[in-house]
């Protein structure tokens, strides 16, 4: 007798009725056995019901792989109820890794060409969910045909499937590119949304598509404008904004199309301003659209007024009560702070307010932004705020905050004393969280500030007397006391309160540090060395010190023991040398480890300095050269100021992403040849700046003798601007050694014909040579 199978509802109720996990498992296992039996028997009438139950069980997390073949059978069946469950099962149970999935390709193909909307919809849905690369390739043409079907339901599904196909197989873009233009004219928002997504995917994956779609920017602008200006439409309005999802998608696409492209950006400017001012931001939907607008403004080549508007919108967001909006505003401001620093500075007080948020993600963002906003004018106030934040912030932010404060102090410290104070305060509040080199930096700083020795040693002594638990502080204090102990005992220092310190107290403190179980081995080492140094600085008897040192001669820690034994020997056998060895240390050279954020700045500063320095002497000689250039400089005008813009050179050197495509190449030119020394010029016209010409002068030496003191100078007509960068060297080794290169930047705003005169001075074969000549045969592309 066949037991009638349960309906899905009944199964659900049974499962919910189970009180414990074990009971539930029992029920499900029993049912699965039924289902398996039913599949084996091949009962066509109830197959869909069995599969539905199986899918429910699968959703709860139980294995259901034995239903895969049933899905195939159900999909192939002509009944709609069967197909529906079959496709659903296919979406859930079959995916790329199962071998069976390719078998449904044929069924999908048949269903797609059938002409019944609901069935086509199902098939498309399944294809877009689990279509693998092979399936997509097979069925791409079918889907493309459906893109132009009269029924909007099918078209919508077809567009979504197309999006999935493009993601899986980007090469199919040439199939889906042509219909897009027509689909943009749709009135149905669903299709429009799908089309915009499709175009976005195409543009992201292929630069050719990007260029193609730049043409539709005006149309997109029109669509968005209608969306923004039409009134209330019940179907698409969400809290007063008509179809925010579509608006956001269009803005996103505009962003991709307008990036790095002047023309498109200009078309969008008005629209963006309109959207920014018209959108109602009292509800989340409006804020979402506004946020997307701000992101778009930031990314395209927008007018400066628009950028300021964007920053102000973000500032307004910051004042909003809603946490989400504030978070989003802080994130975007962080991205903008590099490019629009002054605009973001205006909102600094609000950002600092956000530091006090209880929410961890908000305060982290606010911290990053505040650190980015510190500059030389507001450093004192900001550091104050940041330090009070440091005292109260959660532990995971402390390390970042501490290192941030120290970095900012290094970059912008107005006075050395303030710097030392700040570092001291950070060390006392959050000493364990600072980076390892903070100690080294501080000691070097104090060492360098001679006038502050007394002041710092007193401050450190009082700090140490209060608290010996923070290793960096203890280490620095111990070092200072060791070095400048005599200043500590002297008595008065005008910058702090008078502190009467006895020798015994100092020694007791250092001993306490040595013996404390909280001190790390390194700290103990510092303390021991400090004690030794004090033996020469203090006027009193050094017996106590000698005692301590000899005790540590048998310490378990090898490092300490070694030190103690050496110091002991110093007391005993080499007492005469003790004073000399323990003298005050000279200033330590700062080893090149600068923090990353500074490294670039300092590199820039260095480059600008060297460029300035090396071009200075050339500037004076350039005057003579200009005089020699006939017919160009009437009055002896000084050459245009060689403003160091190493930033520009750095741009070339660093090879930033998003660089313009390589410009068309101009042929090289050999301009000079004498006794094995050759001079070649190569030209580059960067496509971003049409008035700029970069000339690379390369000197090679194939002769048997070195060329030394090689200097190359250039002069151009008055309407040009010339910058000579520092040459790579001034010696050309013989027999084809390393060539010397020098970069010349010529600005030609009037596109006048280029004339170039070169002057070379060098020593070759024991003779000093000077050559002056004008470069002929300059290719036309250099100045047109």
């Amino acid at each position, binding site marked *: 007798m066949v037991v009638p199978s349960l309906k899905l509802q009944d199964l659900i109720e049974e499962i919910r009725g189970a009180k414990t996990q074990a009971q539930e498992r029992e029920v499900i296992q029993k049912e699965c056995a039924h289902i398996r039996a039913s599949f084996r028997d091949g009962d066509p009438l109830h197959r869909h019901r069995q599969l539905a139950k199986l899918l429910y069980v699968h959703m709860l997390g139980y294995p259901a792989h034995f239903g895969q073949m049933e899905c195939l059978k159900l999909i192939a069946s002509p009944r709609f109820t069967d197909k529906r469950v079959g496709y659903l099962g296919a979406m859930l149970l079959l995916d790329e890794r199962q071998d069976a999935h390719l078998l449904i390709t044929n069924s999908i193909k048949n269903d797609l060409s059938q002409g019944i909307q609901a069935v086509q919809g199902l098939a498309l849905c399944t294809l877009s969910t689990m279509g693998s690369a092979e399936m997509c390739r097979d069925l791409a043409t079918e889907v493309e045909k459906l893109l132009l079907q009269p029924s909007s339901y099918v078209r919508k599904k077809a567009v979504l499937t197309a999006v999935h196909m493009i993601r899986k197989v980007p090469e199919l873009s040439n199939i889906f590119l042509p219909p897009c233009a027509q689909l943009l004219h749709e009135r149905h928002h669903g299709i429009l949304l799908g089309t915009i997504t499709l175009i976005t995917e195409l543009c992201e994956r292929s630069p050719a598509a990007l260029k193609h779609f730049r043409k539709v920017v005006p149309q997109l602008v029109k669509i968005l404008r209608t969306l923004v200006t039409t009134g209330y439409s019940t179907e698409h309005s969400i809290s007063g904004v008509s179809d925010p999802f579509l608006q956001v998608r269009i803005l*996103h696409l505009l962003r991709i199309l307008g990036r790095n492209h002047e023309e498109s950006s200009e078309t969008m400017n008005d629209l963006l301003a309109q959207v920014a001012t018209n959108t109602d931001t009292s509800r989340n939907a409006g804020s979402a659209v506004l946020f997307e607008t701000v992101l778009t403004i930031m990314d395209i080549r927008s007018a400066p007024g628009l950028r300021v508007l964007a920053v102000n919108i973000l500032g307004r967001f910051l004042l909003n009560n809603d946490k989400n909006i504030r978070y989003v505003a802080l994130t975007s401001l962080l991205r903008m702070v590099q490019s629009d620093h002054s605009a973001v500075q205006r909102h600094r007080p609000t950002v600092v307010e956000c530091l006090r948020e209880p929410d961890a993600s908000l305060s982290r963002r606010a911290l990053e932004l505040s650190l980015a906003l510190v500059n030389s004018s507001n450093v004192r106030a900001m550091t104050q705020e940041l330090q009070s934040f440091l005292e109260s912030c959660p532990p995971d932010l402390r390390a970042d905050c501490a290192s941030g404060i120290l970095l900012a102090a290094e970059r912008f410290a107005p006075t050395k004393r303030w710097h030392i104070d700040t570092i001291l305060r950070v060390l006392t509040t959050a000493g364990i969280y600072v980076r390892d080199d903070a100690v080294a930096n501080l000691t070097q700083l104090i060492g360098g500030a001679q006038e502050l020795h007394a002041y710092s040693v007193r401050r450190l002594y009082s700090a140490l007397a209060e608290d010996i638990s923070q290793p960096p502080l203890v280490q620095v204090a111990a070092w200072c006391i060791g070095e400048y102990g005599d200043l500590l005992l002297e008595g008065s220092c005008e910058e702090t309160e008078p502190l009467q310190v006895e020798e015994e107290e100092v020694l007791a403190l250092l001993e306490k540090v040595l013996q404390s179980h909280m001190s790390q081995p390194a700290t103990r080492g510092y303390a021991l060395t400090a004690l030794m140094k004090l033996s020469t600085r203090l006027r009193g008897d050094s017996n106590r010190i000698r005692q301590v040192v000899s005790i540590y001669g048998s310490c378990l820690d090898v490092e300490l023991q070694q030190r103690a034994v050496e110091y002991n020997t110093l007391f005993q056998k080499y007492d005469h040398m003790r004073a000399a060895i323990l003298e005050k240390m000279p200033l330590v050279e700062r080893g090149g480890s600068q923090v990353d954020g500074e490294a670039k700045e300092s590199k820039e500063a260095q480059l600008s300095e060297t460029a300035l320095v090396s071009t200075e002497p050339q500037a004076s000689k350039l005057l003579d050269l200009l005089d020699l250039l006939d017919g160009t400089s009437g009055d002896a005008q000084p050459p245009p100021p060689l403003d160091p813009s190493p930033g520009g050179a750095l741009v070339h050197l660093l090879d930033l992403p998003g660089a313009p495509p390589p410009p068309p190449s101009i042929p090289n030119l050999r301009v000079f040849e004498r006794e094995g020394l050759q001079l070649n010029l190569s030209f580059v016209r960067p496509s971003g700046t049409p008035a700029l010409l970069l000339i690379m002068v390369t000197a090679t030496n194939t002769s048997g003798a070195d060329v030394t003191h090689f200097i190359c100078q250039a002069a151009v007509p008055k309407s040009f601007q010339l910058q000579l960068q520092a040459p790579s060297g001034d010696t050309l080794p013989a027999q084809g050694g390393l060539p010397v290169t020098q970069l010349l930047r010529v600005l030609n705003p009037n596109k006048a014909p280029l004339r170039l005169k070169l002057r070379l001075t060098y020593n070759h074969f024991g003779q000093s040579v000077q050559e002056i000549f004008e470069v002929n045969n300059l290719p036309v592309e250099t100045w047109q």
Partner: protein
Amino acid sequence: MIQFFLMVNKQGQTRLSKYYEHVEINKCTLLETEVIRSCLSRSNEQCSFIEFKDFKLIYRQYATLFIVVGVNDTENEMTIYEFIHNFVEVLDENESHLIMVNNSFYMLLNSIC
């Protein structure tokens, strides 16, 4: 782009999960537990966006149910926030009890996403 869509109850059990990028089964469960833990530990005053590995999580609470969407960097968080609410409204309109008929979740999810 949306990477995954989860519906989780307050006890931490996943009611619905849909992944738009291929993730292995064991990694799925691991991911879900971590995500759930970070969402459940947030209080009411904290914002709804969390940074989690290389995703961003946007979550919203409805009575005992948490809906969590994981997106990658390029997506506008506030739109997703609105989208979650839209999804719930649509579900509400079609089915009176949010928990009951699970099949329609998938159907709806497929039509909206």
